[in-house]
């Protein structure tokens, strides 16, 4: 419990067993969610918090540097002993409900490192500005998730061949307080749901999932907008059509099916759901603003990821994209995990430099150097990351 809350539970012995005190009420969100003080709070109702590039230097993102993206209110008074997951929907003949314990005992457990990036990461750069939380660079993480395969559970329940999509349901509550409204209920096509790496996870980095990240159960769909990885999971509906839950329609997590000029108004019927996230990378060392001595070489390192694909090439430029040089790039530890890169850079003379990073995916697509296609909600900004360096 202390691990989840990031604080000792004083008088914890007086608490009923299995009673989960969401309310340990530190008004300080860094203490409340056990986050590093370098994290940036974008919103406090609902809670939204992001990292900075240099905080994401670990190969496996620890909780303290993991971004928080919430659409509603975090559920209170979670009782793990009575927590259940119900599988239902048009494509399920006999709906079935599992307790957490049953899920853990009945199915084989797997652990994967999975990259989760908010669809709106980088939104702050769009012009004209796009509505929503103004994420800069830090709404991405790659933690180690442990759970059971959604596929194994769906096969245990038995689903009809007409299944098209899965949609999740969760215990968070709507900001307006209206109990009939779900803050968010998204999902993925059945093919993504059946992948080896799509998990019903109950632990993150070897511990119970932290409260803000979906304790006690989370659907994890690596490589896709993180909004498909439903937190505080209570149900999965197997649908015979594209899931129509909250934030599946309108401009939510959708982009124009055909590209549009910046600022164009796009009708709902011309918007398409985002699936795999695009190729992207971050220089996580050094922090932007480094002063280095003339003649000194600069070691850089960072991570690159490409949604469903693998990153096949990683390059850097110190001359504003005129010339590019290869970085050493590692293979992913498993599919959908981000990959680590490093390079050693020599600068020709004193002056102001920007180090730009550019990843290329296994299908030959690279990150753009300027903003990619404008869209009404500012999703999918994968423009190359830049850091400023001065040789003095």
């Amino acid at each position, binding site marked *: 419990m202390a691990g989840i809350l990031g604080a000792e539970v004083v008088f914890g012995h007086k608490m009923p067993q299995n009673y989960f005190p969401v309310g340990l009420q530190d008004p300080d969100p860094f203490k409340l969610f056990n986050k590093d003080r370098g994290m940036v709070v974008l919103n406090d109702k609902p809670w939204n918090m992001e990292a900075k590039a240099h905080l994401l230097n670990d190969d496996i993102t620890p909780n303290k540097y993991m971004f928080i993206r919430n659409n509603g209110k*975090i559920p209170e*008074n979670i009782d793990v002993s009575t927590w259940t997951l119900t599988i239902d929907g048009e494509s399920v003949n006999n709906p079935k409900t599992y307790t957490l314990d049953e899920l853990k005992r009945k199915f084989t457990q797997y652990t994967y490192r999975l990259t989760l990036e908010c669809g709106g990461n980088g939104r702050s*750069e769009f012009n004209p500005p796009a509505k929503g939380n103004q994420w800069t660079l830090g709404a991405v993480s790659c933690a180690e998730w442990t759970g059971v395969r959604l596929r194994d559970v769906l096969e245990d329940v038995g689903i009809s061949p007409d299944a098209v999509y899965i949609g999740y349901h969760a215990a968070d509550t709507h900001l307006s307080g209206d109990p009939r409204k779900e803050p968010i209920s998204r999902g993925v096509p059945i093919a993504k749901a059946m992948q080896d790496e799509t998990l019903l996870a109950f632990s993150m980095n070897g511990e119970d999932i932290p409260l803000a990240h979906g304790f006690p159960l989370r659907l994890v769909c690596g490589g896709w907008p993180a909004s498909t990885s439903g937190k505080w999971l209570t149900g999965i509906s197997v649908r015979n059509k594209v899931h129509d839950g909250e934030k599946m329609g309108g401009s939510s997590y959708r982009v124009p099916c055909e590209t549009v000029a910046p600022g164009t108004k796009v009708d709902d019927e011309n918007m398409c759901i985002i699936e795999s996230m695009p190729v992207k990378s971050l220089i996580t060392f050094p922090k932007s603003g*480094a002063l280095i001595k003339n003649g000194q070489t600069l070691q850089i390192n960072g991570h690159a990821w490409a949604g469903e694909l693998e990153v096949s090439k990683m390059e850097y430029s110190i001359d504003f994209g005129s010339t590019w040089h290869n970085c050493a790039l590692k293979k992913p530890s498993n599919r959908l995990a981000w990959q680590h890169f490093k390079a050693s850079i020599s600068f020709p003379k004193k002056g102001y430099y920007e180090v730009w990073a550019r990843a290329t995916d296994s299908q030959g697509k690279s990150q753009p150097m*300027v903003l990619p296609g404008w869209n009404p909600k500012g999703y999918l900004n994968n423009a190359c990351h830049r850091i400023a360096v001065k040789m003095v």
Partner: protein
Amino acid sequence: MKPNFEEQIKAFVSVLAIFLLLILVLFGGLFYFNNRKPKINLEEIPVEANEEDYDKVENGVHVATGFIDDKGMQATIQNCTGCHSAKLVTQNRMSREGWKATIVWMQETQNLWDLGANEELILNYLSKNYAPTNKGRRQNLEVAEWYELN
């Protein structure tokens, strides 16, 4: 005599009913307050200690919410921060049409009420103080702090 007696009975019954009701409320209340779990809302922002603090404005910014102090700010606080944080407003930049469309979207899907005469006031405030600026296709890098890397 008879009507008088009837009235006395009625009066007695009324007094008795009120008395019983009070007992019920008293014990019900005691039972409730003794048994409810301490409920603290995770989403609630700590409220400033007193009114004076809450109204504090520094460098043209309302300290408690972060809103720019200008005509229409109070109406904006009252109507926009019930459900979500002021931060969701202040981090966004939109034209008047954009703010209007956002209000309509919240009314259609997020249970926002009719703003009445305040709508004009709020739209004026938002479109003046939170208007978009042209950022181009890529902005210059801003370095918060240069540091020596060894």
